[in-house]
């Protein structure tokens, strides 16, 4: 089991390097990506039993190069001529084992291409689901089956999504290189957002095959860690990593033994991961002030304030509210308003929070989420209006598409209800 994990960690570490080396040598990101995937599958099958080769990266390069050559040979002659002329002027028929011979190895094989890969996988021409799937496979080194398991969808769905993503990348004429300024800042924001989405995808679901979902948060943290290492001067990349660590630190306390959701205020704080909190705080402290303050740093700072409170009552809500005020100025949005309403209620009372929530009633972006009603229900419960609170909990339970959330909301509603014995049980 341990060996299995070691192999998986190693594969995820070297996969982007192998892919980067292949793409720089042969072009054709999509064909190279398929070839690397094949090599990863071969390694995942062989290495746990036969042992990890002395030079794992060369091994993968050799197998991937062979797969690439095989794929080209399998193509029709006509197509091969076209491809060769258009994309591979240097000629692509390498000796099958060239990549494994020292000195003949691919140029720049020692380079870390993670960054260029991340920029390519998070290309703005792709839809977010495609960006997520492609990032996990090409930059994360996960297999299609692992990604499918993490997203709880059939393997064929992910395979098609990745194929479509690669077609779009080719159609958009995207290059395997780091974009120049000013695009670079803009593109980095997309990369950060994709990693944030991967994290949330894993973090917000707590039912079903929970372990696989945890893999997704771990993978997001691993990629964010790598991005931070490659771009230590980017304060927002540091902020994102800090935010993930400070949020994930509370994972064990978020659900009880039956898989039910435990809200922040009721969590057993001794179950929080103090090492992750300390690391997140350190990264955030180093980043603050080194660049413009951005939404990830602010959210990390808010998460840190929650993590630092020994009890829910000891939470520094005035400071959290002040941070939400800044967040509202630089990155306004309905979800920020929603969170700010919670902070406002803690500082100035539930009625103030409810008044701010009222401004969201006409926001179409909130029409399909249960969160507005759920927060309203909590605040109404605090004002003592149990009838209205119960009504809001039940409304939220009807809107949500999350089973654990629905069960939590149904229970909250039922607690506010003291049913009279049914007068007519047949009804």
């Amino acid at each position: 089991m341990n060996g299995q994990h070691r192999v998986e960690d190693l594969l995820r570490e070297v996969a982007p390097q192998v892919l980067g080396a292949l793409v720089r040598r042969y072009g054709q990101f999509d064909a190279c990506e398929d070839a690397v995937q094949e090599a990863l599958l071969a390694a995942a099958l062989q290495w746990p039993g036969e042992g990890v080769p002395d030079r794992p990266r060369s091994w993968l390069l050799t197998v991937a190069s062979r797969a690439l050559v095989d794929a080209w040979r399998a193509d029709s002659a006509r197509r091969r001529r076209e491809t060769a002329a258009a994309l591979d002027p240097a000629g692509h028929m390498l000796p099958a084992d060239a990549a494994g011979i020292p000195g003949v190895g691919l140029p720049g094989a020692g380079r870390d291409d993670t960054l260029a890969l991340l920029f390519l996988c998070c290309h703005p021409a792709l839809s977010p689901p495609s960006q997520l799937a492609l990032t996990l496979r090409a930059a994360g080194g996960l297999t299609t089956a692992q990604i499918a398991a993490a997203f709880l969808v059939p393997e064929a769905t992910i395979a098609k999504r990745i194929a479509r993503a690669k077609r779009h990348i080719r159609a958009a004429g995207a290059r395997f290189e780091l974009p120049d300024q000013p695009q670079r800042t803009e593109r980095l924001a997309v990369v950060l957002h994709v990693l944030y989405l991967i994290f949330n995808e894993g973090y917000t679901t707590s039912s079903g095959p929970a372990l696989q979902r945890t893999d997704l948060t771990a993978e997001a943290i691993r990629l964010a860690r790598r991005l931070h290492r490659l771009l230590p001067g980017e304060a927002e990349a540091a902020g994102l990593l800090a935010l993930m660590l400070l949020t994930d630190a509370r994972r064990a306390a978020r659900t009880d033994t039956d898989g039910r959701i435990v809200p922040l205020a009721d969590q057993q704080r001794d179950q929080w991961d103090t090492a992750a909190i300390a690391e997140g705080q350190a990264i955030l402290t180093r980043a603050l002030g080194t660049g413009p303050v951005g939404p990830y740093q602010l959210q990390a700072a808010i998460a840190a304030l929650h993590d630092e409170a020994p009890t829910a009552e000891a939470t520094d809500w005035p400071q959290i509210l002040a941070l939400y005020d800044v967040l509202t100025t630089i990155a306004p949005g309905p979800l920020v308003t929603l969170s700010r309403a919670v902070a406002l209620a803690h500082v100035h009372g539930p009625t103030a929070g409810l008044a701010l929530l009222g401004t969201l009633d006409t926001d179409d972006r909130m029409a399909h989420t249960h969160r507005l009603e759920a927060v309203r229900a909590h605040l109404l419960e605090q004002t003592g209006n149990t009838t209205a609170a119960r009504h809001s909990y039940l409304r939220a339970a009807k809107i949500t598409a999350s089973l654990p959330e629905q069960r939590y909301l149904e229970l909250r509603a039922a607690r506010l209800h003291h049913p009279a014995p049914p007068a007519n049980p047949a009804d």
Partner: protein
Amino acid sequence: MKYMIMMFGGLGAATQDRSAEWIASMHELLMKLDTELKQSGECVASDALVDPSQARTVRFTGGAPVPTDGPFAEVKESLAGYWIVEADEERALQIASRVVGYTEYPMEVRRIMDHSAQP
């Protein structure tokens, strides 16, 4: 043989008047049963559907398909969730009985048709 064990929307409406303890025990029963069926390998698929109030219905209106808000059937009869199990009829009925024994609300058990042309 595969059977689909179906739960209907009326149960959701009926739970609104139950106590928190009753609802918590029902959630526990459903989760426990789901885990058991998955561990035993009998469960082929299981899912819950969002509340029928979130459904949309596509009707053929004025010569074209038109989506409208709301479910097609009465909310009471709307499918709320299901298990597909690899089991014989007796076992499928036994599984449904465990839930109905607690909820006192009916469930439907129906065989899934074969794709092969067996005698």
